[in-house]
């Protein structure tokens, strides 16, 4: 075995993990590592313009492929800038390994230049983190990081590497596998519980399936689709779970929750047996848990994380296990079962809710944002990777782009991080060079990571940016309209840039769209004529369009406000 420096070991470990892309930004503490990166070409480094974007891009790389995303940042501000990205990934259970530089071990605690307590700062928003204090621990620590990030309920892991460790030498040996006595995630669900769940489901008169991001993380869309079709039950996917079940299918009731459809929310509320899979009864999904609990229904909850079960609502049949394994077993049991209950009465009730057509919107002289998303869906054949930022545009994208496949919809569901859209598109474009990637954003969000237009230029990424520009921080403005008597406190963007010129300044194509009839030609121009370019579509939309239906914070799912109701 040859002796290697810590920096060489870091790169060798990434090669061993078959990492193609590292998203990062160099700095003093990681100079040795960047020097080793330079000397090889297996691991490609993508230079971003801000560390937050490095982590977001690595996160999107993972979301769109299921592989572990990797980011690299320097100590101090490099690490603190990465925190938003790490917290975003943590809230959505995305597997990441973030390698941060640290000041030399002998300087730690001395308030050295660019020193911060990275392990301390990131502790509450990582699955786990490490500070490497001996070069002999480096390889095994990185192995552990990949193992912890990608198994059980996935999540980000930070490995903090002091500069002297990257210079110190030792023999390199990459462990084939690691075991931790304190970490043994459950994979297989309890078969007794699964049988019990199947009995409940088959005896249900008003069953409902509700699934979240866990189905996508577990790559269980195929199983979910099969199970749902075998049962013939209505199904809803949360914001994080869109695409797990085909969005164009008749059994699909749309998204539930704060901006969910009438049929999904009413079915969630009125069912007698609820099968929840890889989801966590989030406040944006079930509203007020007390209101949710007023209806006596049996709840079956499948999740890999025991702490998600009975956290916000009491569960009758908990099943801890990997979603894919549990669904496989459910399907096996179901295929042997002949006797199924007739639930046509329940379906007629659901069809009545569906007939309310809660997603209808009135066309006006100004461009309706919903219309833009519908046309985007048509032009991309419903099969593009859509990233979004956070706000009204995010909800419209989720509501009107009917995702038929998993890993096509990338957004910050848990933390709700404005600014993810463009870096997500960058990460997704690297991971999926043959797929169309569009970023649906707004005039507020896009400015939070706008500098990444430069990264996109450097690497020639043909991302299409759909900027739904209403000259407002729209979602906050909507709340102010509804709950603060239209006092639009700090939600008006007084001097937003000329996005067309801005796009051009970064070397891209910018197109402004002001009229409804220009939307389709502009989209075609972007996706066909400028197929290989980054195109920034600055679409001036109706200023005060609102997202409906809406369940106000703290209200119950049945207390929705619809578009046609006066506010």
């Amino acid at each position: 075995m040859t002796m290697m420096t810590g920096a060489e070991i870091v790169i060798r470990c990434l090669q061993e993990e078959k990492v193609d892309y590292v998203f990062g930004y160099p700095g003093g503490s990681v100079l040795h590592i960047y020097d080793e990166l330079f000397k090889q070409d297996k691991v490609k480094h993508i230079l971003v313009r801000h560390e937050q974007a490095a982590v977001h891009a690595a996160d999107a790389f993972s979301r769109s492929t299921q592989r572990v995303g990797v980011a690299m940042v320097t100590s101090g501000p490099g690490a603190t800038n990465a925190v938003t990205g790490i917290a975003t990934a943590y809230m959505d259970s995305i597997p990441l390994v973030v390698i941060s530089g640290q000041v030399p071990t002998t300087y730690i605690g001395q308030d050295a230049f660019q020193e911060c307590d990275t392990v301390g700062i990131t502790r509450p928003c990582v699955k786990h983190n490490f500070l490497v204090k001996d070069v002999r621990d480096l390889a095994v620590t990185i192995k552990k990081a990949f193992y912890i990030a990608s198994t059980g309920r996935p999540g980000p892991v930070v490995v903090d590497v002091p500069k002297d460790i990257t210079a110190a030498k030792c023999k390199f040996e990459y462990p084939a596998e690691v075991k931790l006595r304190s970490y043994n995630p459950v994979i297989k669900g309890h078969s007794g519980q699964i049988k019990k769940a199947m009995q409940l489901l088959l005896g249900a008169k008003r069953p409902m399936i509700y699934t979240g991001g866990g189905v996508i993380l577990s790559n269980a869309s195929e199983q979910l689709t099969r199970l749902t079709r075998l049962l013939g039950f209505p199904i809803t996917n949360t914001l994080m779970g869109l695409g797990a079940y085909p969005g164009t299918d008749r059994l699909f009731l749309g998204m539930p929750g704060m901006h969910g459809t009438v049929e999904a929310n009413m079915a969630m509320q009125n069912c007698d047996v609820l099968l929840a899979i890889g989801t966590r009864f989030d406040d944006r999904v079930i509203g007020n848990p007390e209101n949710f609990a007023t209806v006596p229904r049996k709840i079956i909850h499948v999740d890999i994380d025991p702490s998600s079960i009975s956290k916000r609502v009491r569960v009758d049949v908990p099943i801890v296990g990997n979603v894919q394994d549990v669904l496989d077993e459910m399907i096996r049991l179901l295929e042997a079962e002949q006797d199924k209950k007739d639930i046509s009465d329940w379906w007629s009730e659901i069809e009545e809710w569906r007939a309310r057509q809660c997603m209808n919107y009135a066309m006006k002289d100004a461009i309706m944002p919903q219309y833009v998303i519908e046309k985007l869906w048509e032009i991309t054949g419903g099969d593009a990777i859509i990233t979004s930022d956070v706000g009204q545009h995010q909800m419209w994208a989720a509501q009107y782009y009917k995702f038929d496949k998993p890993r096509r919809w990338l957004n910050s569901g848990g933390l709700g991080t404005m600014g993810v859209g463009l870096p997500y598109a960058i990460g997704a474009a690297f991971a999926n060079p043959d797929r169309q990637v569009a970023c649906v954003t707004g005039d507020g969000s896009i400015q939070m990571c706008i500098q990444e237009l430069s990264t996109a230029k450097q690497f020639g990424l043909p991302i299409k940016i759909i900027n739904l520009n209403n000259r407002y921080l729209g979602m906050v403005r909507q709340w102010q309209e509804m709950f603060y008597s239209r006092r639009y406190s700090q939600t008006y963007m007084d001097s937003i840039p000329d996005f067309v010129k801005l796009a051009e300044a970064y070397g891209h194509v910018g197109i402004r769209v002001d009229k409804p009839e220009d939307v389709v030609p502009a989209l075609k121009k972007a996706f066909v004529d400028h197929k290989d370019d980054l195109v920034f579509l600055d679409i001036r939309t109706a200023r005060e369009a609102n997202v409906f239906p809406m369940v106000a914070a703290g209200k119950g799912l049945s207390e929705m406000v619809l578009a046609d109701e006066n506010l």
Partner: protein
Amino acid sequence: MRHIISILLENEAGALSRVAGLFSARGYNIETLTVAPTEDMSLSRLTIVTSGSDEIIEQITKQLNKLIDVIKVVDLSEAAHIERELMLIKVRATGKDREEMKRMADIFRGRIIDVTEATYVIELTGSGSKLDSFIHAIDTDLILETVRTGVSGIGRGDRVLKV
């Protein structure tokens, strides 16, 4: 409800702050916390006294189990167990109080482990409530200083918390 939660965790730098950080981040309350390595130096044993509804205690247990450094978690108060806490209390011991303090220490089976002309240091072990009773039983004006270790606990009989 008061619960005593025992945790076996990796004896590694930062492991304790993961546990303490979890409690503050999720708004759980810590009444006492004690920690020290076990006979196996790679393991620490931590005892936390907390309180909360059954739902909260269930979440605390699950969240603790989720920490990578945590090996095992048990709610000692679920079954027969013993709890002990050590207190060192420095009291003024002059005049008639000197004899009174000696007597109180005897009654509570405490030991006087440091003596000066004007003070005693009394060592006392027992359940938390026994130590509370001692403090209530003596004249608070005479207490110069108290230091308590927090509760340590162990299951009775065959209940063993081990890797």
